[in-house]
Every structure is written in structure tokens, then in C-alpha cells.
């Protein structure tokens, strides 16, 4: 088997991204294929070489700027929440105001009290204003009527 056919799998094998069965198969192949054995060795050397590359480090000033930016994001978020709550409160206030205006100041005339209601409540009014003496007379008359029937 030529190097090209298995080279890509060697790269995956180098990264530990092949199954155990494929790994065993590739290892067996390496004993028969000097080109692939050399390729695998070069992959190892390349990874080692890359690991020596300097990693740029973030300065303390840059980290401080990042902190400030993060704090600003939180403050902006709080501001947005406050605005949203204020908008909800204002909406509720507006709805209440409209409801009050429509129910209390609509300009519609007050409906007159029906005659039957006036008549029904008139007797109660008379009762309410009757003196104790009149009540006593009514009770006596009522009792006499009942005795007369008996």
C-alpha cells in the first residue's frame, strides 16, 4: 500500500482519532512500509516543533480593558431591564387612566329610576320613618283582623 493511501489516516492515528482496530492495522502496516513509518515520525516531530512556538500573552492592561468592557455590558443590560420595566409600568398606568376616563367621564346621562322601583321602595321608606306609636297601632290592628277571621 502506498503512502498516499494511508497518509491521511496516519495523521488521524497520530492524533489518537482512530479506533483500536484501525490503530492495530496501521501499526502492522508500518512494519512493511518505510514511507509511512517515516511519515508518522515526521508528524511527531512537527507536533513537537509546533509546541515550541511562542504563545502570545495578553497584557495586564488588555485584561483590565476586558474587565471594564464586561462590567459595561452588565450595566447596559441592567439599563435595558430598567427601561423595559418602566415601559411596562407606563403601559399599566395608561390602561388604568383610559379605563377611569371611560367609566367616570363618559358624558352619558344618568338613567331615571323606574316607577315600579319608586313605588316598591316607598312603603319601606314609610316604615323606616314611622314612629314607635304608629308601629304599635299597626300591630294591634293586624292582630284584631286575625282574631276576627278566627
Amino acid at each position, binding site marked *: 500500500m502506498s503512502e498516499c493511501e494511508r497518509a491521511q489516516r496516519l495523521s488521524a492515528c497520530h492524533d489518537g482519532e482512530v479506533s483500536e482496530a484501525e490503530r492495530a492495522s496501521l501499526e502492522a502496516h508500518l512494519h512493511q512500509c518505510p514511507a509511512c513509518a517515516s511519515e508518522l515520525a515526521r508528524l511527531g516531530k512537527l507536533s513537537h*516543533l509546533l509546541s*515550541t512556538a511562542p504563545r502570545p500573552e495578553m497584557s495586564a492592561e*488588555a485584561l483590565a480593558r476586558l474587565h471594564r*468592557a464586561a462590567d459595561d455590558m*452588565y450595566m447596559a443590560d441592567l439599563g435595558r431591564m430598567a427601561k423595559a420595566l418602566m415601559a411596562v409600568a407606563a403601559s399599566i398606568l395608561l390602561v388604568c387612566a383610559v379605563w377611569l376616563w371611560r367609566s367616570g367621564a363618559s358624558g352619558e346621562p344618568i338613567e331615571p329610576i323606574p316607577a315600579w322601583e319608586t313605588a316598591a321602595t316607598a312603603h319601606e321608606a314609610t316604615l323606616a320613618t314611622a314612629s314607635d306609636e304608629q308601629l304599635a297601632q299597626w300591630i294591634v290592628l293586624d292582630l284584631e283582623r286575625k282574631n276576627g277571621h278566627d
Partner: protein
Amino acid sequence: MTSESGQPQPPDATLLARACDGDRLAFRGLVDRYAHRLFAMAASLVGNRADAEDIVQETFAGAFRGLRAFEKRSSVKTWLTGILIRQAAMHRRRESRRGARLVPLAGAPEAGLHGPSPTAVVDARIDVMAAIRELSPDHREVIILREFEGLSYDQMAEVLGIPRGTVESRLFRARRQLQERLKEYLD
């Protein structure tokens, strides 16, 4: 996980949950934990310090906006890496529209990014960084994610939004190019 003072540090998931609940210091904890790693990655991708800082800042801004939407299927590291890769790609497109030179010439690293080196031209480390920067953006991404960040193929596929097989083939081709450019160190 412990801090420099020996205090146990809460795991990422705890910091994330607290940050979602509006805990500013929890979000700052995530920033402290990942800023340096993300900066190194961004600087390797774009090749200069100022742009790397901007990209990291945009990455955390994106993370903040997406805090509540993060579904925790992946690790915080993978999540942040994915955001950074997208921000770096957006940066690349913006610079491309402006006609800027994205990749510094080999052997002429930007001042301040790698520090002074009296043997800059022959230093293997400089040559390595130059070789990485000569790669195409797609190839550079997979090399950085694999060799520097140690992401698995599945994680790389998730971060880059490409199939696992594409990750494997890109990595293979990127390594081939690096082997060619750095052959004097490998033979």
C-alpha cells in the same frame, strides 16, 4: 480547580449559571479563566495584538449576549472557541474588504507579538509562527485548534461547523504544507 491563592474555583457550569442570574463577578471569573487562552488563539489567527484584543472582546460580548441561550451541550471552552473563530472570520472578511494585508510576510513578524529575538531570522520558533501564518485561514484554524488548543476532531467539527471528515482532510493538508515549509527542522 484552584486559584493562585489556593482557593477552590467554581467549575465553569457554576460560573455560567451565576452569570446568567446577573452575577457580574461570575462572568468576570469566566473572562479571567479564558481570556489568555483566547487571546493567544486570536493572535495566532490574525497575527497582531490589537486585532486579537478586539476579537477577544467581541468574543466575550457575544458570549454575554448568548449566555441564556447556551444549551450546555458543549463545554464552555468549546463554546467560547467557536465564538472566537466566528469573530476572527468576521474580522478577516472586514479586513479583506478594506484590502488589508492579513498575513505578515514570513520572517517579518510583527513587533511586540513575539518579543525581541536576537536571532529572529534563524530562530525555529519564529519560523514556525511564520509558517503557520502562511497557511490559508482554514488550514491555520485547524492547526491552531489541534496543535495549540488540543481539541478533538469532534470538537473541531463543532467549533468550525464542518463535518469531521473535512476536519481530518484539512488537518492532513495543513500538516503537509507545514512539513514542506519546515523541512529543515524535521529531516
